[in-house]
């Protein structure tokens, strides 16, 4: 029963990424969208929250915020909206951490 966890807020604004990453189970995937994409930055203090997790980030939201892909932590998968749909299909449930 894999779950897709959606985080749409910056970890420098709220504790949602901290909560979501702490609750995720093996096989789950995290998708960072909207301001959540700030959590994917390699040199950010929140980057360690992603250790050991399967993480994707929405490319159009990175581009809208001027974050180039070389700024991302290692192992993060950059996807488009079609990839977003595929992740929703590949996981049994979707949890939005609003």
């Amino acid at each position, binding site marked *: 029963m894999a779950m897709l966890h959606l985080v749409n807020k910056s970890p420098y604004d709220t504790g949602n990424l901290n909560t979501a990453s702490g609750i995720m189970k093996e096989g789950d995937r995290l998708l960072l969208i909207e301001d959540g994409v700030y959590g994917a930055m390699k040199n950010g203090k929140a980057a360690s929250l992603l250790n050991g997790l399967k993480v994707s980030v929405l490319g159009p939201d990175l581009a809208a915020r001027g974050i180039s892909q070389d700024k991302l932590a290692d192992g993060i998968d950059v996807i488009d909206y079609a990839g977003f749909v595929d992740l929703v299909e590949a996981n049994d449930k*979707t949890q*939005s951490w609003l």
Partner: protein
Amino acid sequence: MKLTIQVNEGPYQHQSADTAYHFAKAALEKGHEIFRIFFYHDGVNNGTRLTTPPQDDRNIVRRWSELAEAHNIDMVLCVAAAQRRGIVDDGEAERNGKDATNIAPGFRISGLGQLVEGGIESDRLIVFGD
């Protein structure tokens, strides 16, 4: 895959109204079915036809109406949220003695049971909001 999408935020207020639209469009392009889009809380503001955004900006309300027409999508505004925010169809105008309506094409007003049914009938329920 059959999807129900819940939208909790209004247009031009929070990115989630845009994210939900782009997600819905991508899902339809991939051949998935959208059983229902349920607009809740400030999300009901996505369903007023009286909005007039600048011509060089996206028209979020019209975009929803066009998507619903092209793909025959059931778009539902939560009745209690709509009453609070002044989103009115013919039935609500009659029931509550209002002198006008403003609901946009492709939307209808109904209750939370429609959200529950969407969750039951769909393979996935996905929520966009703040």
